[in-house]
């Protein structure tokens, strides 16, 4: 029941957000479905428009909701039944890695369903569908979401063992959201974003918003570089999480 409610919630939010973005940016989007997708999911960093809280928030809403939902899956296990789960597994690392992979699959399913809604709305409103570009956008967003959920999961696991889970998760979320809102406001933020491979993807997306004609966001090299960075970071975070969970004394504080 909860899962069905979550699906309805996600689809409704996507529907509203898609309609809103269409209304707000339909002139810039130029009736391309993949650009509408970028508007709906693409950004956490908006250099030129970052001065507006609302703008950053509206770009990030879907991603935040997904991250909260995904980190909640891991957090719930750690906070409640971790002892009964761990003692049934031969290896904590195996359990942790399995959970991460499962979360990534959830990311994929959530993103597919949300993008389906956006594409449907786009088609209904007469947008042009370029399949290959849409798939490229999908891959970028999936990597972004996968990385985000990994970071959230590892943090959720580490902190919910040692502290009051609900408080800590809320704190992480607030810090995360505040950093998204504050980093672009700081001097030199653009340079920081450009050298940071994670932010670069977002910049790439926002370049579309700022000057659609000047930059080709679908450069194959850019996509591969971004994918390598994202997957590399993902592996790093997962490895760090596995090393931590395998520490001998980690169960003592449960």
């Amino acid at each position: 029941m909860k899962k069905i409610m979550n699906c309805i919630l996600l689809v409704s939010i996507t529907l509203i957000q898609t309609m809103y973005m269409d209304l707000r940016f339909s002139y810039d989007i130029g009736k391309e479905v993949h650009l509408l997708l970028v508007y709906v999911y693409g950004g956490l960093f908006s250099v030129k428009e970052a001065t507006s809280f609302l703008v950053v928030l509206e770009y990030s809403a879907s991603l935040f909701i997904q991250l909260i939902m995904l980190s909640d899956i891991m957090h719930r296990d750690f906070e409640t039944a971790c002892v009964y789960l761990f003692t049934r597994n031969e290896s904590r690392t195996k359990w942790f890695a399995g959970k991460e992979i499962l979360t990534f699959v959830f990311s994929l399913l959530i993103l597919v369903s949300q993008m389906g809604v956006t594409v449907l709305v786009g088609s209904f409103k007469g947008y042009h569908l370029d399949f290959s570009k849409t798939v490229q956008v999908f891959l970028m967003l999936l990597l972004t979401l996968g990385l985000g959920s990994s970071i959230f999961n590892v943090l959720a696991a580490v902190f919910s063992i040692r502290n009051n889970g609900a408080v800590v998760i809320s704190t992480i979320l607030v810090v995360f959201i505040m950093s998204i809102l504050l980093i672009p406001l700081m001097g030199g933020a653009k340079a920081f974003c450009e050298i940071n491979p994670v932010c670069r993807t977002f910049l790439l997306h926002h370049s579309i918003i700022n000057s659609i004609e000047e930059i080709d966001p679908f450069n194959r090299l850019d996509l591969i570089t971004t994918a390598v960075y994202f997957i590399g970071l993902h592996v790093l975070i997962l490895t760090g999480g596995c090393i931590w969970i395998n520490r001998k004394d980690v169960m003592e504080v449960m």
Partner: protein
Amino acid sequence: MKSIVLKGVNKVIKKICVLNNVNLELDKGKIYGLYGKNGSGKTMLIRMIAGLIIPTTGEVTVFGKTLGKDASFPESMGLTIENVGFWPNYTGKECLRMLADVKKIIGEEEIDAALKRVGLDPDDKRKYKQYSLGMKQKLAIAQAIMEKPELIMLDEPTNSLDEETVEKLKDILIEEKERGALIIIASHEKEFLYNIADKVYVLSDGYVKDNDVRGRN
């Protein structure tokens, strides 16, 4: 060969010695009681045998495997620990199913049977968060026995249980013992322990007092 052997086990937490030179040898097919007042070290000893805490010095061997070296946890163990709950938004049966899915050695039938044994209805649609304290305790016990483990350890199992359920619990424990399981129960309820256990170890300030060993044999 003894099923569980603790050799010179000490545990120091924040400069306080919570377990002090514990030496125990426990056999299969018996019920052991750990009796002591709050903070005497009963729960620590259970957690130690479960592999949840590592001894500062000494060694814990369970079914031939040294914990922390050969295995992280005893291979076949059913455990209840105080203050460890289940997923609040799932029914009792769903919670057990999620745990059973880890090892995949039992199916729906065994889960239903475990729930019935402790007096819970497998068809109860209430979520865990709507359970009373007694029902939560029953579910924890069902979780510990459902996979028919070789080692069952229950920490304060009678907490929140009514008299009828305590009697039912005694029957369950005797059935499990007859099956060949090694059962360890930590409790501050003297009467319950001395009624059910083959041997009761009294703990005080982290020491197991051998001269206070009591029980039915």
